[in-house]
C-alpha cells in the first residue's frame, strides 16, 4: 500500500505563516530580543499577548495532538485578535472568558490557567466553562481553523486535493493488501 509521508515538511515560509505574518514577527523578535515563539503574540493589536498565549493553551487542550507543534494552534487562534479589533463584544467575550478561566485556575491551583501543569487539571477547568459563550465560540471556531490547515493534513495521513494529480486511479485507490480473502 502507498502510505502517506507524514514527516513535517517544515520550510521557513510555512512556519512563519503559521506564526502570524512573517515580517512583523521577525522584526519584533529581533528588536525586542524575544524568541520567535513568543513574538507572534507580541504582534497582536487588540488582545494582550498573555491573552493570546492562553488561547493557544486552551486550543491545545481542546484538541490535543501531541504531534502538532504550537504553530498550528497559533494559526488557529490568531484571527481572534482581528475579530476582537472589529467587534468590542468579541473582545469582551474573550477577555472575560480568559479572566474567568484564570480566576478558576487561581482558586484551584494558585496559578494562571496556562501555567497549570497537568492537562487533566486544565481540562477540568475547561469543563467548568463548557457551557459559556466563550468556550463554545473557541471550540466551534477551532474545529475549522485547526483541522482546515492544509499543512497539517499529511500528519493525519490525509492527502487533500487530488484532481490535479489525476485522482487516485493510479495512486492507490484500491491498494489495500491486508484484508482476509473473501
Amino acid at each position: 500500500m502507498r502510505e502517506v509521508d507524514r514527516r513535517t515538511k517544515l520550510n521557513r515560509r510555512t512556519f512563519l505563516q503559521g506564526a502570524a505574518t512573517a515580517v512583523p514577527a521577525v522584526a519584533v523578535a529581533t528588536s525586542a530580543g524575544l524568541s520567535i515563539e513568543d513574538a507572534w503574540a507580541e504582534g497582536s493589536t487588540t488582545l494582550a499577548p498573555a491573552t493570546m498565549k492562553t488561547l493557544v493553551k486552551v486550543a491545545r487542550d481542546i484538541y490535543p495532538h501531541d504531534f502538532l507543534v504550537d504553530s498550528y494552534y497559533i494559526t488557529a487562534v490568531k484571527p481572534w485578535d482581528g475579530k476582537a479589533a472589529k467587534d468590542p463584544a468579541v473582545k469582551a467575550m474573550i477577555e472575560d472568558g480568559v479572566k474567568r478561566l484564570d480566576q478558576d485556575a487561581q482558586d484551584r491551583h494558585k496559578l494562571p490557567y496556562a501555567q497549570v501543569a497537568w492537562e487533566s487539571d486544565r481540562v477540568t477547568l475547561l469543563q467548568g466553562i463548557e457551557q459559556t459563550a466563550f468556550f463554545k465560540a473557541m471550540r466551534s471556531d477551532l474545529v475549522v481553523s485547526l483541522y482546515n490547515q492544509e499543512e497539517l493534513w499529511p500528519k493525519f495521513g490525509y492527502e487533500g486535493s487530488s484532481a490535479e494529480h489525476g485522482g487516485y486511479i493510479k495512486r492507490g485507490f484500491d491498494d489495500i493488501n491486508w484484508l482476509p480473502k473473501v
Partner: protein
Amino acid sequence: MAKFDLNDDGVVVIVGSGAGGGTLGNELAQKGIKVVILEAGARNEIQDFINNEWESFTQLAWKDMRTTSGSWQVAKDFPNLPAWIVKSVGGSTVHWAGASLRFDEHEFKIRSAYGDVPGANMLDWPITLAEMEPWYAKAENKMGVTRTNGIPGLPGNNNFKVMEAGARKVGYKEVHTGRMAINSQPRDGRGSCQQIGFCFQGCKSGAKWSTLYTEIPKGEATGNLEVRPNSMAIKIEHDASGKVTGVVYADAEGKQQRQKARVVAVAGNSIESPRLLLNSASSMFPDGLANSSGQVGRNYMRHMTGSVYAVFDKSVHMYRGTTMAGIIRDEAKNDPSRGFFGGYEMETLSLGVPFMAAFLKPGAWGRTFTSAMEQYPQMAGMWLVGEDLPQETNRVTLDPKAKDAHGMPVASVHYDDHPNDLAMRNHAYKQGSAVYESIGATATFPTVPYPSTHNMGTNRMSAKARDGVVNKFGQTHDIKNLFVSDGSQFTSSAACNPTLTIVSLAIRQADHIAGAMQKKEI
C-alpha cells in the same frame, strides 16, 4: 442559447435546476417547449469545483439561514443548517454521491404494507413500481447507471474492500460497488471515473451525472431552454381564475423581476419548494398555493441516517476513490421482526480530515475525540440510510421572525424522530459495527446524522386531493398549471437514495405536461 422575454407568457417556468428541475427542463426543451429555469445559485462549472471541503461548501452549499426545532439531533448540532444541499446551477446533482437505486414495490405502498403505524401519516403512492419501471429504465439510461444497460460496475476502492470483506464475514449476500450514475467507462461524451474522491465537492472529471453538464447544456442546445442563475424565486402569482401566471424573483442585483408563465413547476428541493408555495399566499389562497389539503410543508422526511466509522490497525485511506461506490443491500428489505418497518442500505462513505473533525462527533473535544481523529488513515466508513416514516407534524413552515436578504420569511424545519426511526438506527449502528468488527476493527464510532442531504415529502403525491398536494403526475390538485417536480412529491421515503426516482418522475412528468399543453388543458 435562448433568451426569453419577461412578458412571454408561453414559457414553462421551472424553479430550480437540480435532478427534478434540470431534467424536466431538458425533457421539455427536447419536445420543443420553451422553458425558463430560475436558479437561485450561481453557475459554477466543472473547472470551478474545488477539492477542498470547506472551500467547496462555501462555493456550492445552500447557506442561507434556516431555523430548526424538534427532537432530531441536527437541530441541536446544526440549528441553522438543517440540510446540506446545493445552491448552484445543477442543484444537488452537483454534490450528490451518484447512488441510483429503484424503490422496492412495497415502498410505493407503505400504508398497505406496514399498516396504520401510530404517529405516522401513512399513505400509498398513487403509482406503483410496475407503472414506474419504464421511467426508471429511461432514467438509468439517461444517467448511465452502472449495473444497468450493460454498464459494468465501478472498481472497488479500499473503503469498499474493507466493507465487502466484513459484509461477507457476517454473511451478507448482496454486496457490490453499487448502481452508480458515475461512468465506469466513457459514455455520453463524458469520461470515466478517475477515483478522485471529492464526489460531494463537484466531480472534477465529469464522470458523475449532474444536470449541470448533461441535461442543461443539452436543453440549451435546442434553443428552447434558458437558465437564469442568481434568480431567487419569491412568489408565484395567479389570476382571478386561480391559474398561475408567473413567478416573481430577485435577480443577481436583488432587483425584483416578474417572469410570466403558461405553466410553473416548482423544483427547489423539499425545504424551498413548500416555502415558495407558502410564501405565495394570496386572498384567494390564504394558506398558500395548492394547500387546500393543509399538507404543504407537512410529512417532511429526511431518511433515517447515521454513519459508522471503524478503526483498524493498518491503513485504509478511505478517502481515495469514488466516495459511495459500495453497498450492502441485505437490510433494505421490510422485515418487521427486526423491530421496525422498512429497511436501510449501508453505503460506503468517507469524509476528509476537515469534515471528519466537524461531523464525527459534533461538539466533542478532548483526547477521546483527538485520539479518534489521529486514527484517520486507518478508518473505514459507511453511511446508513433507511426509510423514515411521514409524520404530519414534521414540517416546513415560514419562520415567524427570521427573514432572508429579500425580506422573505426563512424556512423553519421541524423534525421529531419516530420510534421506528430510532429502532432502525440502533439496528443499523449494531449491524454496521458488526461488519467491521468481524474483520478486526479495534474501535467503531456510531456517528450521528449530518444535515439532511435527502429531503422529501413536503408536497406529497396522493390519489385524493384531501390527502396530499399533487396527483400522480406531480400536478397540484388545486391548480392545474402548477406542478411540483422534486423530491417533495414523495409519499414515502423508501430505503434508497432519492435521485433516480426524482429523475424518473421528471421524465414522466415532462410527457404529461407536453401532452396537456398540446391538448390545451394547460
